[in-house]
């Protein structure tokens, strides 16, 4: 499935809504969107994974890079709606302990 990236607003919070396959072909597109937000020093960014059907190491690398960049200015990167199969990849990569992961935005904001 081709990747689709949108920036949405949920109760005043910025959400990067990603769907489709994140691979070496589509991750540069994701990186670009993410880095625009990071350059503007977005304080809190949610990434909605609900529609993500696939992620490979290049997609993960993109998020690790985004996280490092955000940490440099004290920003917070929060993942929500991660499907089971994708979560399994984060856990295997020991990144479930590195990223802030929540069920949904409401849980993250509680």
């Amino acid at each position, binding site marked *: 499935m081709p990747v689709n990236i949108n920036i949405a607003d949920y109760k005043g919070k910025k959400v990067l809504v990603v769907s489709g*396959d994140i*691979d*070496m*072909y589509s991750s540069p597109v994701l990186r670009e969107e993410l880095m625009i937000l990071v350059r503007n020093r977005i304080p809190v960014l949610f990434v909605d994974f609900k529609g993500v059907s*696939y992620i*490979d*190491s*290049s997609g*993960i*690398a*993109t998020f*690790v*890079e985004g996280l*490092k960049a955000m940490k440099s200015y004290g920003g917070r990167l929060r993942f929500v709606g991660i499907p089971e*199969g994708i979560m399994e*990849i984060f856990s*295997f*990569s*020991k*990144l479930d302990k*590195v990223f802030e992961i929540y069920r949904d935005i409401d849980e993250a904001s509680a």
Partner: protein
Amino acid sequence: MKDLVKINIPSHPKYLSLVRDVTVWMGRLNGLDEGITDNLKLAVDEACSNVIKHAYRGNTSGNIVVKYKITKKNFKVVLEDSGIKTDVESLKGRSLEDIRPGGLGIHFIKRVFDTFELDEKKKTGNRLILIKNLK
């Protein structure tokens, strides 16, 4: 060479999703369960991505051959390229504790494949042999 499926693609990332589809198709045809098939899909994608990034240094006009040979005993995937010879010593993932971008591909490959072997006999280019033993 019965039951051999082979696909040739240009070394361009846009063809990775085709390789994923073919890998999933081969897993299903051979009755592997969905979890294993998903892991194979990721592993073969990572192996192809590495050929594009490392063997072809991002040059998208190279060629990648992916061969699938499945028997009752194993699920074998062979990748061939005509890129720069791989230094076996460099074929290492980063430590999973050392969080930084990159260095995960080989972990994803070795997670599902029992054999991960560079065929030293190949004169030019590379041949990577991946074998998953089936019970």
